């Protein structure tokens, strides 16, 4: 799979059909507020949120193999930006600032901690979540006297369209990066960091950059979703579920393939929405079982299953050469 340039992607026939399907799909999705059932817009916004968080997580943790649990931090920063600034400026500006603020936090955190290896990095990111949550809580209790804030209200259709746009941008960015030399470089960093550094790759810069880019989308999504909740507090905004669930979705879908990641997010999110309404007390249990089963039997996630099926039908594997 030699890297394809943008030009050759456009020219290549094999991208034509999926491209058209995607385009049609997008048009349908965009038109949904006008002719679709009311609930679908709300339902899909949540699914979009999960796609953004999951794809964002994979953007960094996929190639570098450093498991980040900071997703909720970046998401939460976006939420808080919405709460603080939402009333004072247009929605678009607020969303952009939400994304930028998260990026800045990622840059800070990244430059301090990306040298941490393996588990230590993961634990640090989780600790960061707790730190920020409690710091903001303390601030609010001490200085503003109340806990939590009201968020500007935005109608569901607008929320939906913003989330659609952010989702498309996130997935597109992930796709383009993966296909570019930067995506290849990130993969090499995850495989042999020392060798990557020795062929001219600025490992720290790359890692921090992709960390910040992924955080931007998470923050933007947070800023938009906050307007749906209308009232938020530190514990709602910095909820560890938003750190763990994207990881589960990505593993379930198959971290190696972007299509797998997105599918994993969609299926999981859909499952969650359905299970929450039917079995509000048991849905976490079902989730857990699904996770255990998929880790045991689908080590490469759904994408792995598809890949194996394809390999079996087209045959051939490499010999030691």
């Amino acid at each position, binding site marked *: *799979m*030699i*890297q*394809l*340039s943008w030009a*050759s992607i456009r020219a290549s026939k094999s991208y034509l059909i999926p491209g058209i399907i995607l385009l049609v799909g997008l048009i349908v999705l965009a038109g949904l507020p006008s002719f679709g059932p009311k609930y679908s817009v709300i339902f899909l916004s949540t699914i979009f949120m999960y796609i953004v968080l999951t794809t964002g997580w994979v953007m960094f943790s996929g190639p570098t193999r450093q498991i980040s649990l900071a997703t909720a931090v970046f998401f939460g920063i976006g939420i808080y930006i919405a709460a603080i600034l939402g009333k004072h400026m247009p929605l678009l500006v607020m969303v952009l600032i939400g994304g930028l603020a998260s990026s800045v936090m990622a840059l800070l955190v990244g430059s301090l901690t990306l040298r941490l290896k393996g588990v230590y990095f993961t634990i640090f990111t989780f600790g960061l979540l707790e730190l920020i949550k409690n710091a903001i809580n303390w601030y609010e209790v001490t200085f503003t006297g109340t806990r939590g804030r009201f968020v500007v209200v935005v109608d569901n259709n607008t929320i939906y369209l913003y989330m659609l746009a952010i989702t498309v941008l996130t997935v597109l960015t992930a796709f383009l990066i993966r296909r570019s*030399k930067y995506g*290849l*470089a990130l*993969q*090499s960093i995850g*495989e*042999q960091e*020392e*060798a*990557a*550094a*020795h*062929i*001219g*790759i*600025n*490992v720290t810069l790359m890692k921090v950059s992709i960390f910040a880019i992924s955080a931007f989308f998470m923050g933007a999504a947070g800023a938009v979703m906050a307007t749906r909740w209308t009232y938020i507090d530190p514990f709602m905004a910095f909820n560890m579920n938003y750190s763990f669930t994207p990881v589960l979705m990505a593993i379930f879908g198959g971290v190696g393939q972007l299509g797998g990641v997105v599918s994993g997010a969609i299926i999981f999110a859909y499952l969650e929405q359905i299970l929450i309404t039917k079995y509000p007390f048991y849905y976490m249990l079902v989730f857990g079982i699904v996770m255990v089963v998929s880790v045991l039997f689908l080590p490469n996630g759904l994408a792995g299953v598809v890949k194996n099926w394809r390999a079996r039908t087209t045959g051939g594997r*490499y*010999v*030691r*050469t």
Partner: protein
Amino acid sequence: MFVLEGQGVTKYFGGLAAVSDVDFHVDQGEIVGLIGPNGAGKTTLFGLISAALVPNSGTIRFKGENITGLRPHQICKKGLARTFQSVKVFSDMPVINNVVLGVHFGTSERVKAAQAANEADRLLEFVGLSGRAMVPAKDLTLVNQKLLEVARALATKPEVLLLDEIMAGLNSTEITQAMELVSKIRAQGITIFMIEHVMKAIMSVCDRIMVLDHGKKIAEGTPQEIATSKMVVEVYLGE
């Protein structure tokens, strides 16, 4: 001015001096061999030159510029590349992408994707891996993985190439081929500093040889001088 030189280079690990007050120099266009018993500090010295490690004291100069304290990717861009004793290819990607990465990031030039692929193809042919461009690197034999590392290093357009035991595990025929490759590389104008245990190769290909033992330089000279040095025979060669 030597293209690569070091003065008083020292590196401690805990209380142990892995490299102790070593002076060395490599002239443009030379092939210099670095030999010594296992554990003498050879790979550590390479690590100090390539900035994988930071020396405790001493300076290292590349093309007259003090490079002590720079980071590996910066040193690579300045024109110094290396291979690794324990082969570090990017296993899950195709052979050609290993080299493409070197082309894209090894210099400060911007290269287009198609151009990079062509350059990578050319390098794979240069080292003798033409047919294997799309094979995942992990599926290559050890020998071919070593060749891949060389191709990847060459992709960064180095002026000085550090080779770390590329001949280990090769049979006679392969050693001869590797020696030819080293000569070909030098013919391109690249200076070579190589660690080796395969005496046949070192003696015939190197202009000069440096000997390390317990972190110190104990001898330096032409292959003939080294082969006949009593000390070197006692400590390293054995016959």
